[in-house]
């Protein structure tokens, strides 16, 4: 039972001041084993805050990140799953599922986590699953102003993943879940 937090596109301090209070109260250290962050934090303070939640932190570079040392893409193996991480501004057209699928095949991962569109999405295709955790602060994107703050928590348990989607809609935290399983052969 491994809990993995997928979060990104915070755009602090340029487009948002901080995470919503309700999200912050839920994110306490000691519960989460890994954090994967799509990028666009943008400053070191946010990096330190995420590090305090969990020492195992993986970040990829977004176009507004002040720290240029983050990699463009990253692959991590957690349990039976291979996860790929990429901010998403490199994949053109932005948010296009076929292009993301191409990236996923390139990285050869089961689950690809990418952001940039600030919209939550969970999509399955033959090569695997693509998850977009959205923007945790609800910051506006180049595509739209109407953004609900959201992030994703994955519970990886053997060959099964339960994805909990946390969204802030009208000031209330709404949680949904998505289940999927991996067959014991290589691909989903």
């Amino acid at each position, binding site marked *: *039972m491994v*809990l993995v937090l997928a979060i990104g596109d915070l755009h602090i301090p340029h487009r948002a001041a901080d995470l919503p209070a309700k999200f912050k*109260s*839920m*994110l*306490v250290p*000691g*519960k989460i084993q890994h954090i994967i962050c799509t990028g666009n934090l943008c400053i070191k303070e946010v990096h330190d805050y995420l590090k305090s939640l969990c020492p195992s932190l993986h970040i990829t570079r977004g176009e507004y990140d002040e720290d240029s040392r983050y990699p463009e893409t990253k692959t991590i193996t957690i349990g039976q799953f291979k996860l790929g991480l990429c901010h998403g501004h490199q994949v053109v057209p932005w948010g296009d*599922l076929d292009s993301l699928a191409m990236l996923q095949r390139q990285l050869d991962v089961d689950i690809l986590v990418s952001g940039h569109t600030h919209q939550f*999405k*969970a*999509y*399955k*295709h*033959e090569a695997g*699953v693509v998850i977009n955790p959205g923007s945790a602060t609800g910051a506006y994107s180049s595509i739209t102003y109407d953004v609900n703050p959201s992030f994703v*928590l994955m*519970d990886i*348990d053997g060959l*099964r993943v*339960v*994805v*909990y*989607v*946390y969204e802030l809609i009208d000031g209330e935290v709404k*949680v*949904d*879940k*998505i*289940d*999927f*399983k991996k*067959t014991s052969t290589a691909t*989903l």
Partner: protein
Amino acid sequence: MVKKRVPDWLNSPMWSSPTVTTSPPWKSRPLSPTNDDRTGGYPSSVTSSDSSVNEPRFMLPPPALIRPEPTLRTEISDSSIRDNDSSASVEEFSRQTQLLQELSKKIINLGELRLLASLGIPDAAGIRSTTWKLLLGYLPIDKRIWSSELSKKRSQYKHFKEDLLMNPSEITRKLEDSASPKNGDQIIEGKGLLARSKIPHGDHPLSLGKTSIWNQYFQDSEIIEQIDRDVKRTHPDIQFFSGDSASAKANQDSLKNILIVYAKLNPGIRYVQGMNEILAPLFYVFKNDPNEDYAVNAEADTFFCFVELLSDFRDNFTQQLDNSIAGIRSTISRLSQLLKQHDEELWRHLEVTTQVNPQFYAFRWITLLLTQEFNFTDILHIWDMLLSNPVGPRETLLRVCCAMLILVRRRLLAGDFTANLKLLQSYPSTNVSHLLYIANKLNSHSTQ
């Protein structure tokens, strides 16, 4: 105020330590699973049981004192005990046969068993394991219903484990599978947006609600961590409990499971440091039972016996009861009273003259049932007596503690605060059968 005389039996030569030392006491200690590091600090120490150390473990007290106590010795077939060495093994063998005889009856007489057990249970043939189970009330006295009782209890423990040791992922999965067995596995062929579904009972991993199973899981994980740490530190010198072997790890896992199940079933007392020490001898005895069936199910049996044993002593672990009548402080003051009753001179010297507050040494003796004061084999013998004495384990424990004090009275009377405290906090090794004999003596003299 008339000073109470030290009773004559206390002044008998068997307490005194002969000044001539032939061989250091600890060198002639019989084989025990641990190396006794407690004697290290006392090279010239000769305790009052020095004369009897060289003999095998199950030796009798000096023959001179046997004659006045015929009631306890009716089981002994040979009346004249000349040579301690050979008679000790004969006596042990006769005790063993008597115990086996008692245990093989269809309906076991608990009183008889207690009497036999209080003399000491031999290590052979799993006798101790079965006797302790009977004494703790886990096995009923009617042998015919043993198998049904055992299977009932063992399956009960199995259910406890299943219910309480599951992590929340598994729990939610089980709930879902039972709620909608045919629900899509979400293995959609081809492409598509993944469907979102409602979360069960509004429960999610980051929930801070009181009824959330996730929240409870994270709160329990602190206790589980503490249990884990303590189990790893239990008896580090004994191979059964620690080391890298697979069996040691399996034993540690069993100990952990028992303590976690107990903590979850008893939210009032949870887990307190020290419970692992009380659990260890029980599990050791039950796991080393030559009967295969018993050894395999040792974890379940130990759990119930542990619950039974702790029910007598749980007040010692409850912090709120510390100052009350049931709590540890009052137990310690009862020990003090007992000492005063039997040996006023020593009591006065300890409490008044040298001001050694009994809390400094007796706390550990009482709460941990003397598991930290003696080596492992001795602990088993002391526990034989604790469990079998009809007055009950709490009272017997106090008598053994009192006997421990009286046994080293010469050194205590000669020592000051530091020396006495040092002596009592690392109690020197003695002949345990002797110690238990004295504790029994305190029995009969308690109405003085």
